């Protein structure tokens, strides 16, 4: 009996330790090889080939790989290269449009000036709450842009400015909160994080310059380890791309199950899909979102690691989450970190100090409701430009409901976390993971890529999943 149990435990351990891609960074000979010139060239070549899957042209992949090669062989110039290349790319991309180029450089300049002001006058009102001032200023620019006469020069300038600010505002915000970090701050690295070379969405990957300073490889061995991890992550991203292709072919091509967006559109158009198809599309949509976010994050973090920064993965085993808060942390780590750093901590450290539960719930709402809603509202600034401010806000009600339910669920999840967890594989892991998946699946009805459906359409679709029709 004891022998049987021991054998079962050993099998579980072996399964847990199984890796589709071996842990190359733990093999001493591999780490030694990765420190040699031949090893570095081999890794860079393999990485460059892998990038061809993701970059629109091989030339772009080659240019990026060359930058990585410079940083690998001359790590002392790493920060300089990282600081200069985003500016060079901006100039190359927009030199034919002087207005766009000027505004782009002006936004970067504004970020640097704000960063300098926050450091220069830390006790001033701005120095105390620089991110609040930044976001208020950004909101004011949006309001002014809405007020400008359509197709006039101020309209063109202001909406171009809104678009650029939307893509830079969170990077500048990270630079502003870095003002109090130690060791001493340095401008080149701050500039490097304004849309870093390795790419990003509107969410800064991986956070700001303070974080980069802490995770930078300090010697050839650390660089070899982090680059091996980067190479592995890119390989993993490529495997997921293949998986994604066959997934779509099978479920949406062969089985003809509508995508989540299509199923909602069919419902809105009065030709709803069959009940089982609505559920199937919802469940598939949940997994597809995880897949696409994983691929995106892995590609960016792999490149960041190749540049010498040991960043944590953006998506890490989200399906193993046993609480709603844990899933939120594992699914899109750097977006969660943005909400935590810029909204949760400032609210938590300032308000409701005497009321533990209220304090936690308030800070969670500041992040998951207000921060989340503000991020997505300003990210989709084209809707505000095309539909006008009030209509855009009115049509945002489904997302607001999504953010409110998410914030409430996260609050409950965080407060409940302190209790003892159930034991056993089924009660302790499978059942909670299923519940978490089901929650996010159902919530995704209110977070589709189509922002212009009224809330009633989302609610109607949601109710129809449970045979309730109105």
């Amino acid at each position: 009996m004891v022998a049987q149990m021991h054998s079962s435990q050993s099998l579980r351990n072996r399964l847990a330790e199984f890796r589709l891609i071996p842990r190359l960074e733990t093999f001493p000979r591999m780490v030694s090889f990765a420190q040699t010139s031949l090893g570095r060239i081999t890794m860079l070549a393999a990485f460059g080939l892998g990038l061809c899957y993701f970059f629109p042209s091989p030339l772009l992949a080659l240019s990026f790989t060359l930058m990585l090669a410079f940083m690998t062989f001359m790590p002392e110039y790493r920060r300089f290269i990282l600081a200069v290349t985003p500016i060079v790319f901006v100039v190359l991309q927009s030199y034919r449009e002087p207005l766009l180029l000027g505004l782009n450089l002006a936004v970067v300049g504004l970020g640097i000036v704000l960063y300098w002001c926050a450091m220069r006058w830390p006790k001033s009102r701005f120095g105390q709450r620089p991110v609040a001032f930044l976001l208020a200023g950004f909101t004011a620019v949006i309001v002014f842009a809405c007020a400008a006469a359509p197709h006039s020069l101020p309209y063109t300038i202001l909406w171009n400015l809104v678009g650029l600010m939307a893509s830079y505002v969170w990077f500048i915000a990270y630079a502003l909160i870095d003002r109090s970090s130690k060791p001493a701050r340095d401008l080149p690295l701050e500039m490097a994080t304004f849309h870093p070379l390795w790419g990003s969405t509107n969410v800064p990957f991986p956070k700001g310059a303070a974080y980069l300073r802490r995770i930078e490889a300090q010697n050839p061995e650390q660089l070899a380890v982090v680059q091996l991890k980067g190479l592995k992550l890119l390989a993993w991203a490529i495997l997921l791309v293949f998986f994604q292709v066959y997934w779509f072919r099978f479920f949406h091509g062969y089985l003809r199950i509508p995508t989540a967006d299509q199923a909602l559109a069919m419902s809105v158009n009065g030709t709803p899909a069959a009940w089982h198809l609505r559920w199937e599309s919802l469940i598939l949509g949940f997994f597809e979102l995880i897949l696409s976010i994983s691929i995106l994050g892995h590609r960016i973090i792999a490149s960041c690691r190749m540049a010498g920064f040991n960043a944590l993965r953006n998506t890490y085993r989200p399906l193993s989450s046993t609480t709603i808060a844990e899933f939120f942390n594992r699914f899109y780590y750097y977006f969660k970190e943005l909400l935590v750093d810029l909204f949760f901590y400032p609210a938590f450290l300032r308000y409701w100090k005497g009321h533990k539960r209220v304090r936690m719930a308030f800070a969670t709402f500041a992040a998951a409701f207000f921060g989340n809603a503000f991020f997505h509202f300003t990210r989709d600034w084209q809707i505000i430009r095309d539909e006008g401010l009030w209509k855009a806000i009115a049509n945002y009600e489904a997302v607001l409901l999504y953010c409110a339910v998410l914030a409430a669920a996260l609050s409950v999840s965080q407060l409940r976390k302190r209790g003892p967890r159930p034991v056993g594989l089924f009660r302790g892991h499978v059942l909670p993971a299923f519940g978490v998946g089901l929650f996010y699946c159902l919530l995704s009805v209110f977070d589709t890529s189509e922002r212009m459906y009224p809330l009633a359409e989302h609610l109607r679709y949601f109710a129809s999943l449970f045979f309730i029709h109105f």
Partner: protein
Amino acid sequence: MKGKAEIHELVQGLLTACGDDGSLADGDSLLLSGRLQSIDAVEIVVFLEENFGIDFAQIGFDRDQIDSIDAIYALVQAAMNRN
């Protein structure tokens, strides 16, 4: 007066609650390494507020300050010196 042992106990408890039974040295990175999450940082903040009267809204908050037992202890000592 609470000291390093209490901090160690708190951190060990948070790690155990996260299912992390690995070894814990005083210099080990907690947040940067991903062993503890933001919600766990909140527990540490509350512990420091309640036991040592540290007000992060006043002194500014940086996760580096609480990234290891040594760092937390240094923060506590600095607060005690201020008082």
